[in-house]
């Protein structure tokens, strides 16, 4: 992999990890469509992915740095007290409950699922499925808005009628967390399914995105840190990889800022339509061997 490819992959990973469009799907599809010679399944590619994920996790930690301090303090306070007394303590426990199913499924199933579905055709097909899921989540939200007689109100007012992340139930947090495992399938977006899960649980769009990003941080960080020894294996072009990781972190930072602003009144629909279109176009290009 040359420097240009490393920077491109860093930018792609950082941007698509947080947008509900599947980073893994894009990482499988785009090199294949560009006829790049490196293989994602190659062992030397793993250290690169590790660094890219650490870049993304670093950006998320930076954005939510003050919140994470409150969450960590809240976690220890509630854990030792055996009782939740404040919103940060509740959020800390919700994140723990949401992270456990993702961690269990990740440790036991991630490698198997990824190797089973690591084909550009499968990634393109599931990108279409991901798009339909996003559109479906929004349809269900619109039903909820109609039930609450909110359809004639401005978007910001509609959103105010839904809850903040701290109000989600523990059962919903566990379900949203478990949904993250779907993202091991290339084409299915981790942030997409968790934001969608948050919407189904009655959260505002912006709060669903915030919960999704907070939920992602420990998982992405742990997955990256646990693979750090891979970086010290021989033949790793460290300079190119680090440059890609820095760009990945910068792209993730800009993406997260954009999405949090966008979801004040925006919906998942544009990303849903993008995934459907990108998946169908990719399937066409792959079928025609272009």
């Amino acid at each position, binding site marked *: 992999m040359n420097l240009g490819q490393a920077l491109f992959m860093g930018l792609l990973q950082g941007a698509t990890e947080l947008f509900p469009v599947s980073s893994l799907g894009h990482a499988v599809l785009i090199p294949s469509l560009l006829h790049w010679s490196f293989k994602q399944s190659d062992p030397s590619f793993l250290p690169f992915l590790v660094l890219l994920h650490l870049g993304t996790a670093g950006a998320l930690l930076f954005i939510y740095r003050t919140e994470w301090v409150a969450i960590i303090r809240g976690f220890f306070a509630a*854990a030792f007290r*055996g*009782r939740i007394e404040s919103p940060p303590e509740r959020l800390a426990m919700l994140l723990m409950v949401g992270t*456990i199913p993702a*961690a*269990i499924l990740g440790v*036991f199933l991630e490698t198997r699922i990824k190797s089973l579905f690591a084909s550009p055709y499968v990634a393109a097909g599931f990108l279409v499925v991901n798009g339909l899921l996003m559109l479906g989540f929004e349809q269900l939200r619109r039903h909820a808005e109609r039930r609450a007689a909110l359809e004639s109100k401005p978007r910001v007012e509609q959103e105010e009628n839904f809850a903040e992340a701290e109000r989600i139930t523990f059962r919903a947090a566990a379900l949203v967390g478990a949904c993250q495992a779907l993202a091991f399938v290339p084409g299915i977006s981790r942030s997409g399914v968790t934001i969608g899960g948050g919407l189904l649980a009655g959260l505002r769009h912006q709060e669903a995105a915030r919960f999704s990003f907070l939920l992602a941080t420990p998982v992405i960080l*742990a997955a990256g840190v*646990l693979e750090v020894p891979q970086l010290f294996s021989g033949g790793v072009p460290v300079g190119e990889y680090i440059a890609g990781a820095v760009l990945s972190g910068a792209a993730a930072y800009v993406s997260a800022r954009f999405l949090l602003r966008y979801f004040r009144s925006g919906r998942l629909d544009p990303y849903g339509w993008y995934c459907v279109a990108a998946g169908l176009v990719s399937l066409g290009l792959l079928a025609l061997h272009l």
Partner: protein
Amino acid sequence: MKSTPVALGFVILAVVFLVVAALYALGVLQIFASTSGPHIKHAILFAVLAVASLIAANFTREKVV
């Protein structure tokens, strides 16, 4: 749900998870592992589950006021 038997159940579960974590770390346990040898990821996961079980035990035990 505050109940001493439930809290005790979580403590027992935590001990089981710790034992499983140790067995994975030592490479004795190979269930759900793709390669042979120690499995640090699996060991860390079960250690985290043990901590979560202890927290659950603390939440469910009856508090003395």
